[in-house]
């Protein structure tokens, strides 16, 4: 039985030309990342520092969160704590209601995706507009983002043109990116002006100052936050770093890892509301404290959401973000999502060859591929793997622990392959054979050959 990821990936692969395009586009981003990293001889040192700072912070999270809250409050910011997605959404809705607002703009925040804020607010009659260009495109199409940095990377410019034609009335068949971006800009500008509340994500929250930092390339977070009367910033509580002086380590790594830029076009620092305005920060747990308590998986919380692990992942590039059926896809998603719902996401740690490229690009040195391996152990211990797979594994383990049985089984397997090929060469129940030939069965195994040699 093939897993959900495998099925969705197979659908993705049905259009090979498109798969090639997806793979090559993201590989190009990976190459840009390599070039940017190689301009800094101290790159590996920076990764180590980033990792150390995050490790330290996670070990002292309680104290840093309280320090952050204290300083943010002193700056005149409202601070809210949300234990889960539901509470996060409710807090935001309450702020909206108090302000008497029914339309908001939102800049990119993977946390709000994780909490499914959009559908929640839409059900309550709130008009939510995503202002990141890629997010707006997928929002028009009622799709989820397929990548945490490049949300519409699964779409080609022709798809975008069609979408804009339908929703913004652009010329049919005009695929000129400049034309399309311009149309989006006009549309979004109007939304910015109309909106009284802006929601943004947070890239870094500095305990020492109570300030937050938002990194974007489009400036839409600033546009939103400055135009609106109320700014709500939502963050998973792992976004904390202790001091302002640590920030440089991360900003140097983030954009280089994400897109190969030396720095994001906008790195915006928010400390306090402008006179007459309001600023809120929502600190969200939503399973993070549970992950923090899992020794083998806690350091997945070091993640700064650069998506370098997506771009380098040979499986992600050839299966697309939607095959991961979660808000955060890719290798990091495969170690975060089982924590949120182990059963629904039991397939994800298996959607990897464990090649290890993800761990090597990760700017905060998360041992992603080792955690994928460990999740596999947890998932099968919880009985969440296919029972037939478990049976097969048990049988295999039994054979391989018994040298005589192993020799017999090996001989039998070779005999079947050689003499009853139709049993093996079957595309229906041997997935290997669908697109690959079977290895030839040799007359004798190495051990058989060796024993004969010894005798002669």
């Amino acid at each position, binding site marked *: 039985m093939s897993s959900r990821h*495998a099925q969705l990936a197979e659908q993705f692969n049905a259009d090979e030309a498109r798969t090639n395009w997806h793979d090559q586009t993201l590989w190009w981003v990976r190459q840009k990342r390599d070039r940017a990293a190689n301009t800094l001889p101290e790159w590996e040192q920076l990764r180590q520092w980033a990792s150390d700072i995050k490790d330290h912070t996670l070990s002292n999270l309680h104290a840093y969160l309280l320090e952050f809250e204290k300083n943010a409050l002193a700056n005149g910011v409202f601070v809210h704590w949300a234990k889960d997605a539901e509470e996060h959404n409710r807090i935001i809705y309450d702020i909206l209601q108090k302000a008497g607002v029914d339309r908001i703009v939102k800049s990119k925040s993977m946390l709000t995706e994780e909490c499914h804020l959009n559908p929640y607010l839409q059900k309550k009659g709130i008009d939510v507009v995503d202002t990141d260009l890629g997010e707006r495109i997928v929002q028009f199409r009622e799709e989820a983002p397929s990548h945490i940095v490049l949300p519409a990377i699964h779409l080609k410019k022709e798809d975008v043109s069609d979408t804009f034609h339908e929703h913004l009335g652009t010329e049919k068949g005009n695929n000129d990116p400049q034309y399309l971006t311009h149309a989006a800009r006009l549309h979004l500008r109007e939304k910015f002006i109309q909106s009284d509340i802006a929601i943004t994500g947070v890239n870094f929250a500095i305990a020492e100052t109570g300030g937050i930092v938002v990194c974007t390339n489009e400036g839409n977070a600033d546009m939103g936050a400055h135009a609106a009367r109320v700014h709500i910033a939502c963050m998973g509580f792992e976004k904390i770093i202790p001091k302002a002086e640590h920030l440089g380590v991360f900003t140097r790594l983030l954009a280089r890892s994400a897109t190969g830029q030396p720095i994001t076009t906008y790195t915006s620092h928010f400390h306090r509301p402008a006179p007459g305005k309001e600023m809120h920060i929502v600190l969200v747990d939503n399973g993070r404290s549970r992950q923090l308590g899992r020794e083998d998986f806690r350091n997945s919380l070091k993640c700064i959401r650069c998506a370098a692990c997506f771009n380098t992942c*040979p499986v992600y590039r050839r299966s697309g973000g939607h095959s991961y059926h979660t808000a955060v896809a890719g290798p990091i998603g495969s170690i975060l999502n089982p924590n949120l719902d182990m059963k629904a996401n039991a397939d994800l740690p298996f959607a990897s060859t464990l090649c290890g490229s993800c761990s*090597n690009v990760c700017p905060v040195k998360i041992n992603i591929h080792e955690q994928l391996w460990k999740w596999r152990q947890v998932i099968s211990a919880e009985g969440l*793997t296919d029972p037939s797979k478990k049976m097969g*594994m048990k049988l295999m*383990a039994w054979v391989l622990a018994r040298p005589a049985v192993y020799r017999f089984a090996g001989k039998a397997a*070779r005999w079947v392959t050689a003499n009853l090929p139709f049993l093996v060469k079957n595309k229906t129940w041997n997935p290997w054979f669908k697109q*690959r030939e079977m290895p030839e069965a040799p007359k004798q*195994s190495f051990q*058989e050959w060796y024993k004969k040699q010894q005798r002669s």
Partner: protein
Amino acid sequence: MYTVGLFVPCYIDQFYPQVAISSLQLLEKLGCKVVVPLNQTCCGQPMANSGFASLSKGCDANFIQNFGELDYIVCPSGSCTLHIKEHLHSEQFPEKATLIQQRIYELTEFLTDVLKLTTFKGSFPHRVGLHNSCHGQRGLHLSSMSELVAPVFSKPADLLKRISGLELLLPERSDECCGFGGTFCVFEESVSVKMGKDRIREHEQNQVDIITGGDMSCLMHLEGILKRKKSPVRVMHIAEILNDGYE
């Protein structure tokens, strides 16, 4: 003289005996005394990577019984070597397990770091493409990795370059995974095959005669795709090339 235990992974034993024969002959040509423990089976990786490390106790015990007394263990597979290094476990003989983990070498690692092979007599006049298997490369550090900002090196490439007549060609993406991935190759069939096809395309662009590497499992997967499309390109384990090339 080194006494070396040859660990032959189960699928090599059963389906690619010539890889083990080549490893044995090569080590003997290089002056090693090679011991082949005859009750060896498997490192246990197939179970462990599928989430059933708990089931590999029997394999672990059998491995320790076969290899516990040897000073050097050599294996013509980066993946199986890495598995032993990272996961061999024994409640009963923990010291033995640790010793084995220190004493096991992947073949090209052993040739380079222990035998310090620098000269190579013989020739192999072919265009050869090298496939870096992930476990050998990123796990055992047999070569530098394209993701890291670090000096470039490659143990297998250095060995191959020493063979006269051999023209070594690297694919454009020098260390992208081939998509084998153990049971991944059947449970994620479509992505697995697509990854393999993409590796092959790059090697074909280089017009290689042969694709080689240190892991027969990756090569078996690539071979399956090559044969299906009736490509003239062949696969050969690096042990076969080194043994053929060494007089």
